[in-house]
């Protein structure tokens, strides 16, 4: 996935953590996740942040992930539901 998205493994890892934390990705096994799911999650997050929906973990997107924000998940019903099941 890192090579597809053209990012380092560290940035990918941080990005995925962020996307899971705020509900863009389900908190299930990372190995079961497709590149397309990841790209869609990034695009949704970019929409919330007012960025171009490239689906790439580009510099603007990584920067957005550092922006101060609210701790409530952006997408309710994915990460939240999963957490409740556990």
């Amino acid at each position, binding site marked *: 996935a890192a090579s597809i998205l053209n990012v380092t493994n560290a940035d990918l890892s941080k990005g995925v953590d962020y996307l899971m934390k705020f509900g863009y990705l389900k908190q299930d096994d990372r190995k079961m996740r497709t590149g397309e799911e990841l790209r869609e999650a990034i695009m949704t997050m970019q929409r919330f*942040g007012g960025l171009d929906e490239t689906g790439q973990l580009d510099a603007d997107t990584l920067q957005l992930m550092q922006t101060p924000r*609210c701790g409530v998940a952006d997408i309710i019903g994915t990460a939240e539901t999963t957490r409740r099941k556990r």
Partner: protein
Amino acid sequence: YALVGYYWQKKNLTYRIVRTTPQLSPYVVHDAIRRAFNVWSDVTPLTFTEKFHGEADIMIDFLWGFHGDGNPFDGPGNTLAHAFFPGPRRGGDTHFDEEEKWTMTKEGANLFQVATHEFGHALGLGHSSEHNTIMGPFYRYRDPLQLTEDDIRGIQQLYGAPEERRPKQPLTPVATQKPNFQPNHPEHVPNTPERPPQRPPVHTPDRRPHTPNHPATPPDTCFPSIDAVAVIRSELFVFKDRHFYRYHDKGLYPGYPAMTSRFWRSLPRGTHVDAVYERYDGKIVFFKDAQYWVFDGNYLESSYPRPIRDYGLHVQSVDAAFVWGHNGKTYFFKGNRYWRYDDIEKKMDRGYPKNIDRWEGVPNNLDGIMQWTDGLTYFFKGTKYWRFNDITMRVEEGYPRSAPHDWFGCRKVLGTPNDRD
């Protein structure tokens, strides 16, 4: 906008601030929280009442790290706060990360603005994917903060539009409410514009453009002294003789000064007031001689005026009154003495009055005192003012300074023999 499927099934909600942050005075925190709720109550039929004990619908707290709700804070930066959606027990509760730099400015995290966003969650809104909305997930300082159409549509989807009711918070010039207002009436202030004062924007005082119809000659604000000063809804109000002057951060509002007894009717006409302060619950309290009046906005509460001995003040009048953010108590000053009153317990604290010299560097016979939005306390007397440091308990170096010049928009520095020229 996004609705999460939960909403309050009642319109009158309560909130309680469990802890404030030491980074801001308690007064400033309470004021910021109250104003944040007002943003939502202005566009819905909801009301929010602060409780000081026991359980409230929305419990507000400043916490850090793991704090027992399964959603730990992450230290400075990134996550600033979170809130729970409406429901029993934890529902509606709102937590602010104590490790953020909380401010009331554009630096750090502006508490009023973050609280406004979080209360949107506490009322049932999720994050909006519409850019620039208050309910967007990313923090961005706004000047001024205003709900967008998207935010308003979202909240009104849950609770509807505001019902016709007596306005509680806005301070509206009386002139705009009176269709028979006569600008040339002898009671009207000589230097007000020929048109009735326009309604100042509620909660958005700092970006109002000056109207082209405003008279070219500005009012004289080089007061040799003032009668009272107060911060009401985070705006500066100065009272002098029969009039009051209302300021935003760039100067005097157009249409001011206005006559005090026309705005807050039921106050004695044609005279001055001694002291004014905004109480913890947003009510505005006026003192004149041995009586006091309590207003909700500009509506007099029933059974007022009352004698100031209700407060335990056995004097004929007070010089100044203010709420000290350092401890949230209300202070009254008269001559060289001061009293400390607990407005929540409704009783004078023991051991008062005390001598004013405990406020090191502050003079006797003050004209007014206020705690500004920077959390600092300012004492006014004559043309001078003193800035007081709550930590060292003394007046800061470099004071007194010229109050008309620094605060009231007077271009001259008063205090010289020919200062009125």
